[in-house]
């Protein structure tokens, strides 16, 4: 059968972010996929080299609007790793609380969008309606619905107002009830089950080969979670479990995220109990950043976020490297997408909860002979490309 290429994007009604997919199809079957990104690139790593250690926290918060506390946690972990600073216990609990509230809001957001991608807009409207109380909690506790900007290297900027805690408990209790009802409604629906069960299966071998992280890996039964494997903040001070599923299909990716929301609600409640007992400072002073290197990790809603900073003892980092979870999760669509139906392509692409804003970094890959590309090399490459295009279009 003849092959055809279907372009999706960069501006497509189904996508909230600009990205470009080229799906090669044989009839209704997808045989290959190509992903073009770069519409969201903002040059954050380079900008970080011109900002002070404190300012970079607010820059990395704006890498992504959905995980706007994950990147600061990872960055602060990196700076604290570099300075060998231990943050106060109260700050640890506040970081955990904000991080877990963000996981709740992010997974609810994805659940709604997944319903939208399936053409089931009722789920979208329902879930986003119940996401609003979580944003209200954020507004009351941190001062903003999104972009909370709570962190600084050394601790947190603001203490939480404990007067709100009883109201937060009530709102989360209602969210839990609504979510139980919703999860039963979703998982009993024969249409949703037949759209999701056994589709886009990612095997544990694929997870290891592609290096997938986060809920994408945990849905396939691979139990990796930075919060358990390399605890930071208060994750080793509270009781919680890593949620995993076994099959690795789309249904399990939904189930694992719903389980994580319940686990996160439990963790937020534990953090509030602890904050009522643990009092004191929320900020440790960092007088100067010594020369050296530091790494920081955080389990963002989508998987492991990794930050690397290098210092020469000055007022800003001389190198800042960000690796977001989508960067490693996105290539798994090469394993899950070929062989599937065209109608399932969008939900399979969306099943990793992609965030292109997080992903868009510039990377130079060596061509085995040379380790780095100099300015002359780049000019030569650009010249060759222009020449190729000229030959192709005959101008």
């Amino acid at each position, binding site marked *: 059968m003849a092959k055809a290429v279907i372009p999706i994007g960069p501006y497509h009604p189904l996508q*909230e972010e600009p990205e470009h997919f080229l799906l090669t199809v044989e009839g209704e079957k997808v045989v290959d996929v190509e992903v073009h990104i770069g519409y969201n690139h903002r040059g954050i790593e380079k900008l970080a080299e011109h900002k002070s250690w404190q300012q970079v926290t607010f820059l990395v918060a704006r890498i992504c609007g959905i995980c706007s506390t994950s990147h600061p946690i990872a960055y602060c972990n990196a700076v604290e790793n570099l300075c060998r600073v231990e943050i106060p216990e109260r700050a640890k609990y506040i970081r955990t609380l904000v991080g877990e509230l963000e996981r709740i809001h992010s997974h609810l957001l994805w659940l709604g969008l997944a319903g939208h991608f399936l053409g089931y807009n009722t789920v979208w409207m329902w879930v986003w309606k119940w996401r609003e109380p979580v944003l209200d909690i954020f507004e009351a506790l941190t001062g903003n619905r999104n972009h909370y900007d709570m962190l600084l290297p050394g601790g947190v900027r603001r203490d939480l107002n404990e007067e709100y805690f009883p109201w937060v408990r009530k709102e989360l209790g209602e969210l839990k009830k609504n979510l139980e009802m919703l999860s039963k409604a979703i998982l009993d629906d024969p249409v949703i089950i037949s759209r999701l069960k056994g589709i886009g299966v990612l095997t544990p071998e694929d997870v290891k080969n592609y290096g997938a992280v986060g809920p994408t890996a945990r849905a396939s039964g691979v139990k990796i979670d930075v919060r358990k494997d390399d605890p930071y903040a208060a994750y080793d001070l509270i009781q919680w479990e890593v949620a995993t599923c076994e099959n690795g299909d789309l249904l399990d990716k939904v189930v694992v995220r719903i389980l994580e929301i319940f686990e996160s609600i439990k963790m937020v409640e534990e953090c509030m109990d602890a904050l009522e007992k643990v009092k004191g400072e929320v900020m440790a002073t960092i007088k100067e950043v010594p020369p050296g290197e530091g790494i920081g990790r955080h389990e963002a809603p989508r998987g492991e976020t990794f930050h690397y900073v290098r210092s020469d003892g000055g007022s800003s980092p001389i190198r800042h490297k960000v690796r977001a979870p989508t960067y490693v999760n996105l290539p798994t669509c090469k394993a899950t997408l070929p062989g599937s139906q065209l109608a399932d392509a969008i939900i399979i692409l969306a099943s990793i909860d992609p965030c292109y804003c997080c992903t868009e970094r510039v990377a130079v890959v060596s061509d085995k002979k040379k380790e780095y590309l100099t300015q002359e090399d780049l000019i030569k490459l650009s010249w060759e490309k222009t020449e190729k295009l000229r030959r192709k279009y005959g101008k």
Partner: protein
Amino acid sequence: MGWREKILKRSLWVYHLATGPCNNCDIEILDLLTPRHDVERFGIKLVGSVRHADVLLVTGIVNRKCVPRVLRIYEQMPAPKLVIAVGACPMGGCVFKGSYNQAGPLDKIIPVDLYIPGCPPKPEAIIAGIAKLLEKLK
């Protein structure tokens, strides 16, 4: 006021264009459609193609890769055209000001009718902005 503007102000159809945002304004725009804010009660609707749209809602710093696409989408839009810049990024770049990939601000590239500042603006602010735009049309 011509007949076109008279018809336009009854129901605005909006096309959302992301040009290198951090996703946050985009989520707040989607949030407008969901039950708490529900802008469809004012006749405002998000459409899939710019050829059906009255309003272009632009978010993001307008990076170099997006500029040709922004111009092309603006040309495809039927007149009368209204352009709204949502968030701090299309106005001055927010924290990304000075980035090597920033081609904005947006008003250097296409004419802008309304600015809604904020990082991100609250959904209420976006509704208030669009209400002001409707006032301007009257």
